[in-house]
């Protein structure tokens, strides 16, 4: 029935069959087509789930219609002189990365997971180890186009590196899990690929490595990545500290010497570029190893207590996949846990002023726990009000907070 209505609006070629749960799937080719689908959904009261490649969040939300970005693909513009690229949301992140490499350009972002689409990375706001040196996803975006829940096409931001015209809607959209609209294309700020890329590893006791990492930061360095990695995540017997330095050759050489000096007694060993690249890639891919992935935002000085809390509530055997950006205090965990456990843990962390974001999980967990939660004060009222403005008919099936 819904499939027929969509087919008559857009032509049968945009219907790409059914998902395995029987939900009809539409894959619009243009922003306008996307707008037509969503305004129809808003009028008819359909609930829509948006999906990219399905490699991050499971495509199991109980929707009337699945909207796939698989036909919204292509790197539409790369300007090496201006260091700006525009890309459509369904484009695989890897394709974007390779296409930028042809121009010796780079987005300093290594999102967790594998085979993800650009839209998924932006909608979930997931940054990887490089957040230490280059900031998170929000810092790489110059503008984006999205379609609101009722079909309005909105162009936020632009293609220039500084822009304060109007409110920063692009920042609001990045990392809001698609609750405010379907992202159709994104303009990224680029950098030229740094010439040198050096990774160093130390192995040992968790807290000793945190101390070594703090000593590196205390020397005034801000490494590209400074990641503390659990034995499971690093495929090792002990915890690993992985330090990545990127920049000009003299700068990286100098940083390497300083880091090795100040990290003592921890011993930093240099890795070959090829094995290091493989390591970082595998580390990112590992973030989908468990059923659920969480991100915690601690203060860098409170990492030990946050990790103790994590071990106590979710990782009793201390053998889970955990990575920690020591520079930013951001902790990522993947494993299996019940919604009750996650909620309890979130409550405990909230008391320590540590927010927890549910980055990915099956629908039964997402819907119960919510991507966010433990809002403080009036934030929930503001978020709901914004949501009402962007998606008045509640078309977009996104559990921002618990029980939605």
């Amino acid at each position, binding site marked *: 029935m819904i499939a027929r209505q969509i087919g008559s609006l857009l032509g049968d070629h945009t219907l790409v069959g059914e998902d395995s749960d029987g939900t009809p799937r539409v894959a619009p080719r243009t922003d306008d087509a996307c707008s037509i689908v969503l305004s129809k959904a808003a009028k008819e009261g359909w609930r829509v789930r948006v999906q990219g490649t399905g490699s991050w969040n499971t495509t199991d939300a109980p929707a009337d219609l699945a909207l796939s970005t698989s036909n919204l693909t292509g790197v539409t513009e790369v300007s090496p*002189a*201006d*260091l*700006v690229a525009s890309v459509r949301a369904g484009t695989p992140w890897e394709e974007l990365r390779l296409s930028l490499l042809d121009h*010796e350009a780079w987005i300093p972002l290594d999102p967790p997971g594998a085979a993800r689409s650009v839209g998924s990375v932006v909608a979930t706001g997931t940054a990887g180890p490089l957040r230490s040196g280059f*900031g998170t996803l*929000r*810092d790489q975006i110059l503008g984006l186009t999205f379609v609101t829940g009722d079909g*309005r096409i*909105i*162009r936020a931001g*632009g*293609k*220039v*590196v*500084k822009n*304060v*015209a*109007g*409110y*920063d*809607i692009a*920042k*609001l959209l*990045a*990392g809001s899990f698609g609750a*405010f609209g379907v992202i159709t294309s994104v303009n990224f700020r680029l950098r*030229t*690929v*740094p010439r040198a890329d050096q990774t160093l590893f130390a192995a040992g006791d968790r807290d000793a490595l945190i101390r070594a990492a*703090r000593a590196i930061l205390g020397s*005034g360095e*801000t490494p590209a990545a400074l990641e503390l990695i659990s034995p499971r995540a690093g495929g090792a017997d002990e915890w690993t500290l992985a330090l990545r330095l990127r*920049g*000009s*050759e*003299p*700068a990286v050489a100098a*940083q390497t010497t*300083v880091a090795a000096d100040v990290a003592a007694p921890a011993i930093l060993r240099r890795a070959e570029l090829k094995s290091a690249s493989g390591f970082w890639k595998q580390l990112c891919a590992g973030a989908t190893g468990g059923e659920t992935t969480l991100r*915690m*935002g*601690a203060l*860098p*000085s409170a990492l030990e207590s946050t990790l103790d809390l994590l071990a106590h509530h979710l990782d009793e055997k201390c053998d889970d996949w955990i990575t920690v950006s020591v520079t*930013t*205090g*951001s902790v990522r965990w993947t494993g299996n846990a019940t919604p009750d456990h996650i909620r309890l843990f979130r409550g405990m962390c909230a008391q320590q002023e*540590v*927010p927890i974001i549910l980055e990915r999980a099956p629908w039964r967990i997402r819907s119960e726990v919510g991507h*966010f939660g*433990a*809002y*403080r*004060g009036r*934030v929930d009222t*503001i978020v709901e009000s914004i949501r009402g*403005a*962007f998606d008045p008919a509640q078309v977009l099936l996104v559990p*921002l907070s618990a029980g939605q």
Partner: protein
Amino acid sequence: MTVPTAAIQALRDVVGEQWVKSTSVELETFATDGLPTHNSRPGAVVIPGSRDEVVSVLRLLDHFDVPFVARGAGTGLSGGALAGSDAVMVVLTRLNRILEIDPVNRRAVVEPGVVNTKLSEVTDHVGLSYAPDPSSQTVCTIGGNVAENAGGPHCLKYGVTSNHILEVEVALPNGDLVTLGSPGGESWGPDLVGLFVGSEGMFGIATQITVRLTPTPAIARTLLADFSSLRTAGEAVTQVISAGILPAALEMMDQNSVAVVEESIYSAGYPTDAAAVLIVELDGMDKDSVESEAAQAEAILRRAGARAVKSATDPTQRARLWQGRKKTFGALGRIAPDLVVQDAVVPRSALPDILERIAEIAAEFDLPVCNVFHAGDGNLHPNLSFSRSEPGVLHRVKEAATAIMHACIDAGGTITGEHGVGADKIHLMPLVFDAETISLMRELRRAFDPAEQANPGKVLPLHVCRDAAEADASQ
């Protein structure tokens, strides 16, 4: 419309007699910001001394249904912190305490009235600084920087205000307090900090701000390159950036700016016969790597056509090279009594063309223009000098500024990179955003401020909004 006397009296009861200004002489001080083309006297001015007083003031104004405009040091350049006679200006300069310095986590907690450079002065001994450095940084406040998403020369490498704000406590227009973000910078929900920064005082008043601190570079080298044409200087900018060098700052001054500075007490030794000079600063923690990048940058500048490249490492020499750039606006006072500092952004590669176009526009409107700006970001500041006593000149200035904005938009740019829309550019918003987007921005604002009492009449041209259009149609 005026502010009711009862409301003014109630404000006095909250903050004390001396912190409420209501006579016309007192109010005149608050009738302009850094942009001389806009002038508006507020109904009253209140200067609260604490967060609690801010909250009480907002509750009171909400009760009396009086709109308000928050203001820091009043150095804004878009007429954003101006209030009409029906509104109360809430001045935050007394909330000037640095509440916490946390070197381990590289952050600080400040009140909104803290002056930008004061924070770096206090954190300097722990090797950290607050990176955003607007030209007015010795007087402007961090609260104002948050409202405008302020930039500055060193934002090329270190990012604008938005990249440095972790958490903001906001007094909403009804007086409720809400905390956005978290001390570590991770969010409790969608990125409301990112949305709040740059919202030009239309969502509420920031009462407490947690900022990120950045390790102070141990070494910096400043280059001064001079060019015989604006075009080659513009092209050199693109060549430096696309070579993979990320200077801490990359600034351009054209011949008019150089001449004005060199004739003033701020003379920095710039070559007055150059069509343009570039100031390129490289910095870092390690001397050898900074030297090596500086050498690379110098070679690129020479290849790109620089006639000469001067280099300075010691602080006195560097300060001298920077002095002219930082004091240009002061020096411009010599050539005409009034100055409009404009602000627009273009893609870097469009700089050579747009600089020529700006010169044409200035000639067309018979106004002296000089360009002194953040070339590495493509962030232009064409400055128009004039004397307001000349009949009709304000109209010509506005027309010329609008023509420049059109040219920047045509080049793929936008109407403001760091000064904000405020009152000055509200009429240009429809050039960069369609009615749907502006309407959605209005709805966003209403999520924080349903009655639209915070800084009314700024940023959003309400006549283009969807619901206004619908309301008109239904009448």
